[in-house]
């Protein structure tokens, strides 16, 4: 933490600072969700009380099961993917290691149910402590959640079931497990404040998707604030004020109103084109996974779908989708987006997504293994089905095809041979299609950057995929907690690779875009403009912000910014150059650009 705590006086206002994880301002009462400090007392019971104590435990377990069941029923759609967590909780609740062991403990040692549960939990903790697989080892948190739920029912404190809170609160916690976050009644959550976490942690992602302000990594906050106290949370800067004085409340009430107004104004303007003050225009498009997301994308001002991920059509089933199914899905997107273009990316599985319908033998390093275009070129039927469906849809609207994980020209040459066969088939069958569907490649493998000048002669557009490009170029596995902090889009090497790809595209006169996470970060928007990218594609919620920034940029100044960035030696230097630029030319846009920078500076 860079920021020190400043305490005005004892019991008075306390100012703390963390990482802003989701923007917005909240002013309200605190609800502390902390299970670590739960006090469990050991109480001996008399022999004649044993039966009733066992019964008390059974009743609590039963109740806990009903609570979980109720949550499962009322799970909002956007959180349905987390349903499995709660189903696992149901099983753990009645697991013999918890229930039978605790009952046994009550009977043999004649102790209270709370203590018996604690004893069982500690036993499970010890066993889990020996597990080498981190993923399985971390399931202990689910066991802890479950036991805490039973203990809360036993003690009558009901600490966790936020669904019972009728008044909106600011939830303050050491950390929120995925289970915690989905259990909270989000209508009653004004903001999240946690001691742990980062901008990419679960809480942050959920908070952003729900539009709830969040500040994470506030060291020790649960020690300084109590349930029922007042708090101000600034999700834009990462500041929090515990027991705020009148001045602070007045100031943040204004800021909250400004923020809401600002956000509405941005949404209202989101349909205006993204043109810089000096007339340079950028096409801002949406990354989409499901056709359902199209409405939000269009409402946010998307000028097309820059990346239609198609993996969702394949996952969660035991067979492969038919050509007609793919046709229907693509057709739906193209029709609803028309006349704006849709860029369909061919199947990108094998790296972090796997199909039960297409088992691939285990690979020690799947990110570098048989995945994406390599898998498609090996499983030709799989590839043909996609290409046929895409070409059939091309007769009905504007679409482009994007191929992932291209390392150089040879993949493109192979792809073109297949494309010709597909076209011949369709012609022979008398099926109409667009002869001139634009073809593009993801620039995400470092060798593709080196070959960009020649690749540009083979295709109609580039789409720079920064997530994988950074991962592969810097040799950093983003999900590996030991190195994830090194992952940095502002590494001068990465900036140079983006620049090189953009230049190669421009010289050949093809369109160059970007569809990685970097494209959706407002603080980086001036870099995108300065690099001369023709289109940037991002999650729908970033579109209004990025368009807003573009309209306030001057492309000439942005090009100077990029020239300066290309001379930077270190990420730190690049960050300072960018911050200086933002402070100088976009001072009023700090709400949009600041959150990310203060997060990045901690890396």
């Amino acid at each position, binding site marked *: 933490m860079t920021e020190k705590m400043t305490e005005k006086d004892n019991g008075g206002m306390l100012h703390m600072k963390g990482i802003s994880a989701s923007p917005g301002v909240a002013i309200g009462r605190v609800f502390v969700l902390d299970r670590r400090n739960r006090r469990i007392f050991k109480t001996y019971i008399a022999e004649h009380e044993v039966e009733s104590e066992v019964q008390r435990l059974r009743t609590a377990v039963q109740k806990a099961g009903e609570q979980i069941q109720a949550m499962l029923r009322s799970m909002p759609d956007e959180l349905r993917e987390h349903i*499995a967590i709660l*189903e*696992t909780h149901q*099983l*753990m609740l009645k*697991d*013999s*290691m*918890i229930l039978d062991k605790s009952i046994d403990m009550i009977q043999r040692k004649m102790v209270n149910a709370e203590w018996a549960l604690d004893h069982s939990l500690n036993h*499970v903790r010890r*066993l*889990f402590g*020996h*597990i*080498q*697989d981190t*993923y*399985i080892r971390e*399931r202990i948190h*689910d*066991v802890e959640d479950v036991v805490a739920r039973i203990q809360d029912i036993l003690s009558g404190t009901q600490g966790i079931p936020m669904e019972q809170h009728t008044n909106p609160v600011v939830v303050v916690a050491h950390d929120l497990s995925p289970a915690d976050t989905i259990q909270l009644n989000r209508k009653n959550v004004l903001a999240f404040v946690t001691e742990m976490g980062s901008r990419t942690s679960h809480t942050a992602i959920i908070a952003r998707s729900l539009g709830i302000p969040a500040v994470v990594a506030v060291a020790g906050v649960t020690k300084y604030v109590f349930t029922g106290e007042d708090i101000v949370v600034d999700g834009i800067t990462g500041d929090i004020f515990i027991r705020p004085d009148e001045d602070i409340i007045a100031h943040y009430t204004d800021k909250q109103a400004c923020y809401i107004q600002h956000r509405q104004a941005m949404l209202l303007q989101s349909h205006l084109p993204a043109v810089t003050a000096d007339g340079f225009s950028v096409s801002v498009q949406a990354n989409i996974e499901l056709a359902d997301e199209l409405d939000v994308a269009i409402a946010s001002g998307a000028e097309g779908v820059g990346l239609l991920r198609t993996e969702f059509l394949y*996952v*969660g*089933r*035991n067979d492969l989708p038919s050509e007609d199914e793919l046709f229907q899905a693509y057709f739906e997107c193209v029709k609803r987006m028309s006349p704006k273009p849709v860029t369909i990316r061919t199947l990108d599985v094998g790296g972090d*997504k*796997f*199909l*039960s319908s297409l*088992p691939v033998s*285990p690979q020690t390093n*799947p990110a570098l293994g048989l995945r994406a275009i390599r898998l498609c070129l090996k499983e030709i039927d799989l590839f043909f089905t996609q290409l046929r469906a895409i070409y059939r849809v091309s007769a009905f609207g504007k679409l482009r095809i994007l191929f992932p994980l291209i390392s150089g020209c040879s993949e493109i040459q192979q792809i073109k041979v297949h494309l010709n066969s597909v076209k011949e088939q369709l012609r022979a069958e008398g099926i109409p299609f667009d002869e001139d569907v634009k073809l593009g490649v993801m620039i995400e493998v470092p060798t593709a950057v080196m070959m960009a000048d020649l690749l540009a002669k083979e295709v109609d557009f580039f789409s720079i995929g920064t997530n994988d490009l950074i991962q592969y170029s810097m040799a950093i596995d983003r999900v590996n907690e030991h190195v994830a902090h090194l992952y940095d889009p502002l590494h001068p090497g990465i900036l140079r690779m983006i620049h090189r790809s953009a230049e190669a595209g421009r010289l050949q006169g093809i369109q160059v875009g970007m569809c990685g996470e970097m494209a959706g970060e407002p603080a980086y928007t001036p870099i995108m403009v300065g690099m001369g990218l023709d289109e940037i594609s991002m999650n729908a919620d970033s579109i209004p912000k990025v368009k807003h920034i573009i309209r306030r940029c001057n492309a000439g100044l942005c090009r100077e910014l990029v020239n300066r960035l290309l001379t930077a030696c270190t990420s730190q230097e690049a960050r300072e150059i960018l911050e200086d630029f933002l402070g100088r030319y976009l001072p009023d846009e700090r709400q949009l650009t600041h959150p990310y920078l203060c997060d990045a500076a901690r890396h």
Partner: protein
Amino acid sequence: MSNEIHVTIENRLGLHARPAARFSQLASRFASNIRLIKDGKQVDAKSILEVLTLACPTGTRLTIAAEGPDELEALTALQVLIETGFAEYD
């Protein structure tokens, strides 16, 4: 008398939370006493926590032993579950 079968865990992440949940859930549907055995270590197949603590990464060879009125039915069902990769995408 009990019956046994040998299986190999083949899904990529091994017997992690979701497959372990499905496994213990299915095992619980049978009356027989069912044990999961790895390198001589035995656990109750009906307990998700015990199954998890057995820590079975992909490639692990396991023995499932069942004893009771529906032991063959149980073994067949559990074997199919494992062989189909827990019918899940992971």
